[in-house]
C-alpha cells in the first residue's frame, strides 16, 4: 500500500503515435504536429509531438493514483520544458514539499530516457483521509 508520507510512486509512460492520435481525437485537436510526422519534420522535430496537455495528464496521474480516493486535488500546474515523441519513456515522479494541516503540496517532474526534464509541475491535495488502517 502506498504510504502517504513517502509521497507517490513513480509512473512511466511510453506514448505511442496511436495514443497521440486518440488524444488528439478525444480533445478535438486538429494540429498536424501531433499525428503527421512529415509535418512535424518541417518544424524541425524528429517525429510527431506529445501534446502539451498529455504531458499534464501524465504528471497529474501520479497524483491521482497516489490520492486513491483519500483526498481532493485542489491545484495543479505544469510547464512544458522539452518536447517528447513516440518511443520516449517518460518517467513521472512526485515528492511532498510541504504539509499544512490537511493540505499537501507536491512537486512533480517528468523526465525522458535521457534524463532530460520534459515537464515540471506542482499539485496541492486536500487529504480527507489518512489512508492508515484502523488499529
Amino acid at each position: 500500500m502506498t504510504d502517504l508520507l513517502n509521497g507517490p510512486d513513480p509512473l512511466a509512460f511510453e506514448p505511442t503515435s496511436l495514443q497521440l492520435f486518440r488524444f488528439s481525437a478525444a480533445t478535438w485537436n486538429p494540429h498536424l504536429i501531433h499525428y503527421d510526422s512529415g509535418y512535424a519534420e518541417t518544424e524541425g522535430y524528429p517525429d510527431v509531438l506529445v501534446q502539451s496537455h498529455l504531458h499534464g495528464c501524465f504528471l497529474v496521474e501520479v497524483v491521482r493514483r497516489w490520492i486513491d480516493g483519500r483526498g481532493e486535488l485542489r491545484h495543479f500546474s505544469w510547464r512544458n520544458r522539452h518536447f517528447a515523441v513516440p518511443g520516449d519513456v517518460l518517467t513521472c515522479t512526485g515528492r511532498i514539499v510541504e504539509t499544512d494541516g490537511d493540505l499537501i503540496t507536491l512537486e512533480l517532474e517528468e523526465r525522458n530516457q535521457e534524463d532530460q526534464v520534459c515537464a515540471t509541475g506542482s499539485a496541492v491535495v486536500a487529504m480527507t483521509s489518512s489512508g492508515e488502517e484502523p488499529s
Partner: protein
Amino acid sequence: MIPELYEQCLPLVGVSTTEHLGRIEPLAAQRFAVAAGALQSDAPHPLLLSSVMGWHAGPDESELYPDGTAHGFVPGVPLEDVRLMGAGQDLEFHEQPRMGSEVTLETTVSDVQLKHGRSGDLLLIHLTRRYTAADGTLLTTCRETFIAR
C-alpha cells in the same frame, strides 16, 4: 510579423468572451481518460475541461490553418502564419464537475508579452479561462500561456 500580432493583441487584454460549451458527455469524458492513459473514475478527469480544444462541431477542413489548427483560438486574432505552442497550465479546482454537467466558459486575455528570443521574436499570450456550471458555480480556473513564434 510577431510585433504586428503583438500590436493586434494589445487591445484585447482584459477583454472577456463567454461561450456555452454544452454537456460533459460521459462517453467523451471516458474516451479522454482512456486516451490519457488515466484511471477511469465516476467523475470527469481533472484536465478534461481545459484540454478539449473544440466543444462544437468545428469548422470545415478548408477553413483550418495550414498546420491544422482552427481559427478563434485567441478570439479576434488571426494566427494563421505563426507556430503556436502550449507552454503549460495552472489549474485551480473549485468544485468537481459531474458527468452530464452543463458548462460555460469565460475566456479573458489576461496579458500579452513580446519577447526577443535567440531564434527570433516570441509572442506570449496569457489566457484565463473560468469554467462554470449551469447554476453559476465556478468549477475550474485555468491560466494558460501560449507561445506564438
